[in-house]
């Protein structure tokens, strides 16, 4: 009876050690990648200003948003479009267009950004953004 109990305990221990070895194998690959990116990039960029961080992320699109901010008064209603219009669903262009359409209200608030389908006739201004321009920053997701 005692022998059987010992056998179960050992089996438990062996299982844990095996699982841990496999876990560590996958984790350490990830941790080395983290160390690399942390020392190569994050330690350098964490001291940047917020504006510099925005520019790192969104590249020229951020500058374009700043330009639109200057040209349009607060509270203004604007239609935001991406060119080319209606890219094919789930293509890179479609994802880019969705990103810019979604991101623009965040940057331009308190200006109200409408998509074309939601626009009302009173809206006088529109912004068109060319998604073919290489505008993503280094860290865009």
């Amino acid at each position: 009876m005692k022998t059987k109990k010992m056998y179960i305990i050992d089996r438990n221990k062996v299982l844990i050690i095996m699982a841990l070895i496999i876990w560590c194998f996958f984790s350490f690959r990830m941790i080395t990648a983290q160390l690399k990116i942390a020392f190569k990039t994050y330690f350098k960029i964490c001291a940047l200003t917020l504006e510099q961080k925005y520019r790192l992320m969104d590249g020229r699109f951020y500058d374009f948003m700043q330009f639109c901010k200057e040209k349009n008064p607060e509270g203004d209603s604007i239609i935001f479009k991406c060119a080319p219009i209606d890219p094919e669903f789930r293509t890179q262009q479609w994802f880019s267009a969705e990103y810019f359409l979604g991101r623009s209200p965040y940057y331009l608030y308190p200006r109200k950004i409408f998509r074309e389908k939601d626009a009302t006739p009173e809206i006088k201004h529109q912004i068109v953004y060319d998604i073919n321009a290489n505008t993503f920053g280094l860290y865009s997701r």
Partner: protein
Amino acid sequence: MLFLRFIFSIFSILITGYIILKLFFHPKERLPFGEIIILAFGIGVGFAGLETLFLSFTKYPLNTGYLLSFQFMLLVIAIFKFKKSFFYWKKSYTDEKVTYSPLTLFFLLIILWEIIYIFLEAFSLPFTAWDAWGNWGFKAKIIFSEKTFPLKLWTELPWIKHPAHLDYPLLIPFTEAYIYFFLGQVHDAFAKLFCSFYYLGIISLFYYHLKKRFNINFVLVSCFCLATIPNILMMAPTGYMEMALIFYITGGIFYIWRYLEEKDISFLSLGSIFIGLGMWTKNEGFSLWLTLFLSSLLMCLLFRLNIDKKRLLISVLFIPLLIFSPWIIFKYIFGLKAEFFASSLQNLVKDLPILLRERMPLIFNILIKNCLDFKKWNILWFGFVFTLIWFLIKPYKKLSMFFIFIIILQIIFDFVIYIIWPVNLFELELHIFNSVDRLLVDIAPLALFFICQQLGKRFDKNYMKGSKI
């Protein structure tokens, strides 16, 4: 200067949480000070967020002084009530000698590194993930800019609905706005830094709940596993609210579990409050609350728990619902519904058999592929299935069934949502790809906790002492 302001905002949250705990939370046992701090953070964030929300309905514009005035009143009441003992918390004592193995210290170092890395990555960039800026960050920016809760935006303007889901609960946007009021500006990186505290919180709660029962080396190794789940690491620094949701829901479930084990009612109340705050965090909190209630019901029906079962069920059902009820009322008054479900639920019953036949294989396929992706989960789900089979053959602690009920019911709930989701198969596939990680990550710490409960027999303090369990 900004950093000092940020620290001040976190400090105000901790003090508020501490006061609330001191006033209302009186467990029979002595909790470690670290656990009190983590609880103070959770409760303090809940209070700060909801305080900002409710004060925004008054006619005064929100600002730091206005927000702090209520917390100052709480502080005065607490100091008046507790006097010299205000900063005194009974120390937890232990008669056991703790010995760390060198290997465990190595794992501890890795945990510390992961925490540093998450904070570093969070602070390095502004919001990069869609929901982080489109949903939570955008709403926080609006609240900060308007110095109030702009009801009109939530009800009239079509432009806001594209990046932001208006039917999502508002605890986190208001908490981020609370931080912005202290900073005096919108600052994505600090909002992300704040969200990273949840990662620390989850690991701490996991640690303290395992430490109650298991040997310290086993506990630290388990925490290492939790801290290095790739998907958790991926989401923790992005400003996604999965970490906040996991913190509240997992924390709540842990404390309810502790009530089942130790029969201390204060843990039941605390757990239920955490669940309520989890419901305020994301819509998924609602499904997790339902799952928890059903699991508690099953536990009451199937096990002899030696507790007041009615009290358990009433607390789990009504305390979270009471905390969440203002948002339900708000949604009802302003007619906010999940956009996807608003129109087509009526056709559902008619189409259900077709949907089931068409979608089940797709959902299964994606779910299993995702779970077996070692780059996302390491061997977590593989280990979970293995442990589940082992548990069903030879359970070490039958009460662990509580976690299995929650995990399985939650997965079933996710399946149901995907099956009735009113989009075509093509869009559904895209939607599942985008969301399945986040749905699984909600239950991942519970799965790991269950694994630890079953595998940890050899490291159980009671077992090591030779007592009968």
